[in-house]
Every structure is written in structure tokens, then in C-alpha cells.
């Protein structure tokens, strides 16, 4: 695309040049966004669109969607900086609350776990799960050490490039927060993951144990505090169950 920067309409053309009206095919609808399959300048990509939720007050809805797009972009960038792989970002449309990013080919950790459960005997399954858990824990630890909490750690939000458990790509950073992160927030982040695992995969205690193992190894000096808080958050959950 040739853009003459002296041309008055350059800016417009420039935008058009991004192929903004891209071909889009609905791919999935997750917890809060619609995902479309698309091609971006010849590269396989996805468009993540946060659409308006009518059950919310419109001002609140707008504020949240904008905030989450921003949080997601920042989180993805920050993660890259500290050596945690995330999809490449191609384009962000703040008006429409859309993010265009690299399409990671492979599967989610959720699918992978259920696949290896079928294909392996129990021991192999556990071993596989362990080594994957340790690696995942290391990644989470790195994020926390850099003062980023993901906010929605689940096995659907962990993608495996080419289905390879050694190639973890973290996605879905819309609920992440950065800076001034307390040990409590880190503990809650881990707790969210623990429960997500427990409610998605049966017989998978091993996985979260390994995650904690990897976490402890990599999480730097904050890790110990976070693990203590995790225990506290768990206890609170249990106590409250008693009073209904």
C-alpha cells in the first residue's frame, strides 16, 4: 500500500490500508467476548470483540469494556516483556472494543488434558500433567514477580501452540491488574486457577500441586507470601460455607 503522507486523506487511507473491514467468521463466544476468525495482512488472526451487554447500565458497560480492552493489551505486552508468551497483537480498535491478534494454532490446555487422559495410562497421564503443571506454575510465577495478576486463570485461557505442552501461550488478560499488587491478590489469582481446574478436570489434584511447585521455584521473593495468602483464602471459603 502506498501512502503519501502529504495527502490530506492519508490518514483515512492509512486506516483503510489496515484492512479494517476484514473478513470475519464467528469462531466462539467465551465468557465475555466474541471471537472471530480472520486474516490480517495475510496472517491468520482472530478478532476479539467485547460487545455491549444490555443487562448492565450503559455507562458502566462502556467503561468496563474500554477498561478491559486496555487491560488486556497492557497485560499481553507486559507478559511478553517478562518472558511469558502471549499472542502477537496486530491491531486495537478502541472505538469498537476490538483487538486483532495472532491466531495461535493448536489447542487449549483444557482440550489437551482431556486428550492425554484418553491416550495414556494413569502413570503417564500423571507424569505429563506434572511436567505441564510445573511449567505453567513457572509462567504464573514470572507474571506475579513482575506485578501482574492475570485475574482469570483457567485451562481454557492457556493455549498450547501446535498442541505442544512445552509451548504455553497465555491469553484473556481482560481482568488482569498491574502495579501495586498485594500478596492477597496473587493468592486469589492462584485460588481462581485451583477452582477452575477442580471444576473442569476430575482427578487433577496433581496438576495444581505441580503448578504450585513451579510457582514456588520461579516466583521470586513474593511467592512465599502469595502461597500463604492462598491458604488463607481457601480457609475463608471453607469457613463461610458453614454459615450459608
Amino acid at each position, binding site marked *: 500500500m502506498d501512502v503519501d503522507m502529504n495527502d490530506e486523506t492519508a490518514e483515512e487511507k492509512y486506516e483503510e490500508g489496515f484492512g479494517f473491514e476484514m473478513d470475519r467468521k464467528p469462531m466462539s*463466544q467465551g465468557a465475555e467476548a*466474541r471471537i472471530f476468525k480472520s486474516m490480517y495482512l495475510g496472517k491468520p488472526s482472530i478478532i476479539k470483540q467485547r460487545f455491549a*451487554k444490555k*443487562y448492565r447500565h450503559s455507562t458502566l458497560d462502556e467503561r468496563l469494556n474500554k477498561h478491559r480492552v486496555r487491560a488486556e493489551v497492557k497485560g499481553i505486552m507486559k507478559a511478553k516483556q517478562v518472558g511469558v508468551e502471549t499472542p502477537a497483537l496486530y491491531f486495537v480498535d478502541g472505538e469498537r472494543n476490538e483487538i486483532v491478534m495472532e491466531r495461535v494454532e493448536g489447542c487449549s490446555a483444557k482440550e489437551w488434558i482431556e486428550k492425554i487422559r484418553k491416550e495414556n495410562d494413569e502413570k503417564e497421564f500423571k507424569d505429563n500433567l506434572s511436567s505441564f503443571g510445573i511449567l505453567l506454575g513457572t509462567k504464573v510465577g514470572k507474571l506475579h514477580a513482575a506485578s501482574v495478576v492475570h485475574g482469570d486463570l483457567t485451562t481454557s485461557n492457556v493455549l498450547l501452540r501446535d498442541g505442544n505442552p512445552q509451548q504455553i501461550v497465555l491469553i484473556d488478560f481482560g*481482568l488482569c491488574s498491574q502495579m501495586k499488587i498485594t500478596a492477597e491478590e496473587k493468592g486469589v489469582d492462584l485460588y*481462581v486457577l485451583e477452582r*477452575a481446574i477442580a*471444576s473442569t478436570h476430575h482427578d487433577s489434584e496433581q496438576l495444581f500441586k505441580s503448578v504450585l511447585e513451579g510457582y514456588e521455584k520461579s516466583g521470586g521473593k513474593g511467592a512465599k507470601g502469595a502461597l500463604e495468602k492462598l491458604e488463607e483464602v481457601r480457609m475463608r471459603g471453607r469457613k463461610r*460455607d458453614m454459615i*450459608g
Partner: protein
Amino acid sequence: MVEVIAKIKIFQWELIHNMRWLYQGFRMSVPKSAALQLYRGLVRYARQLKLTDQDWALRRIREEFEAGRDARGKRARESYEVGIMRDGVVLSNPRATFHAPPGEGFRPSETAQHHRQQVVKLVLRAIKESGIKEPEKELDGIAFTKGPGMGAPLQVGAIVARTLSLQWNLPLLGVNHCVGHIEMGRLITGADNPVVLYVSGGNTQVISYSMHKYRIFGETIVGNCLDRFARVLKLSNDPFPGYNIEQMAKKGSKLVDLPYTVKGMDISFSGILSFIEKRANEWVEKGEFTREDLCFSLQETVFSMLVEITERAMAHTGNFVETPANGCSDE
């Protein structure tokens, strides 16, 4: 199958199934502000549905609302119920309701006393109304609420159930309080695999059945939001704080930017509370926001958070229509 169900209703619950939103909470009046808000929200939500029969959803929501409205009292109340069921049909279900004094919560001992006074009458009435002549032979089992809840009133149910089971030589079945509410909802609505948002005074949970168990998917990390909020704004707690917040909220219009904390499927109100505690009085003095605005904002924010975690749970369990290649594209 016939079974006796003695259940102590304490709070309210809502049930949501495959985007068919139903609301049943009006029978029990504890957080009424939440109830009305939910109703309005559900109607709003139902209008937006694309994959479900809209009219059906709206009609059900209205019906539930109408049915519940008659029973709405202004005071927090708690009822003791005895019911007899056969094959999912309720044969009889008499209840006795205990009202807390205005402005006060329940005292376990008084509530228990009330239950003790009523229970024999209720059991007899339940048997009579159901047309059962020989309970030993006609009943298959006895179920009761085993908790969680207030200890003393729960004991009344447990003792009665145990006595009856010994007397008639029938199996005894303790039912978890939450599960009881959920099962009741499933029965009434015919939903087979619901994601449930369980709102109660002390705690809020998103629950669904998965891998042979009801599991908690998300919950409040810090609860008891309404009471503390009302205290900061110095609202009266007569008849109870939630009611007054609701009344004030009706007159509010400006939306205050309150912290919105959703983590996974958990929510936390601590941010809202400390935020309000720090700024509320200053705002009100300077006239930036009125107390009404603050109540309005609280309702909108908390409501959105509740619906959002429910929605997240639906996406998580797959009850939500995931990957609808044509369903979700409106472009």
C-alpha cells in the same frame, strides 16, 4: 416415590438455565432491593436473547414476579415448611412464617422457639392435606435440611425428622440447604442442568453440577456489602438496610464510578466498601453526588457483577451456547 421434606427457608435464590432466566426470589424478602433489580435486569436481559424464545423467557419472569409479589412482606422473615412429594409433584406444603422484629435480624433462639411451636401442627397438616392415611406404609423416606444455617432452628427440623424416621422406620436423608434450594428450583422450572446464582445474606455463590457433584464455581470474597454500605451512609435499618437502599436507589440517577472487582468467577465487594467509606461523606457534603446516587450506583454495579459471574460460569460449564457458528453473528 413419596418423601417428606421439612425445609427451612432462609433466603432467596435465583435460577438460571441455558439463558432462560427465571427469578424466584420474591417469596423470601431478604435482599429485596436485589430482587427488584434482578427482575428489571432479567427483563432487560431477556429482551436481548437471541438463542432462546424471548416471549417465553419474558412470560416466565413476569409470572414468577407476580407469584412472588403477593408473598412479599416488608420484614425479613423466615419460614418453617413441611412438604410431601410424590414423583416430583408436591402433594402438600404448609408453612409457618416467623417475622423478625423491624430493624433486627433473627435471633436463633427465638426462631427456634417459633419453629418448635409450629412443627407438630405443620406435620399433621401436611399429612392430612396430602391425603395420606398410613404414613409408615405410604412414605418412602424423610428428608430434612441439615445446614448450613442457624444451629438452633435447624436442630428443630433435624429432631422432628429423626423422630419420625424412627417412629415409622423410614430412611432419613439430610439435605444441604443450598442443594435443597437448587433442587426445588429444578423441580419448579424443569431445568435439567442449571447454573445457579445463589444470593443470600451472608454469602453469594455461583453453583453448578459438574462431575457428579454440585460445585461452587465462584463466590464473594468479601460479603455483607449491603449492611456495611447502609451504615456508611447512615441509612436506617428499619425494616432492614437492603430495603432502604432500594428505596433510595429509585431516586438516584448519576452513576458513580465504583470499583468493579471480578476475578475469574469470584467477586469482591471490599473495593466498593473502602471506596465508599473514604469518599461518600465528602461527596454528599460537597453536593457532588447525593446519597440516592450512591445507592443507585451500588445497585447497578453489584447487579452487573452478579450477572457477570453467572454468565462466566455458564461459559465455563458449556451450558452457554459456545461456538454457535451462526448464532452469535449479528454483523
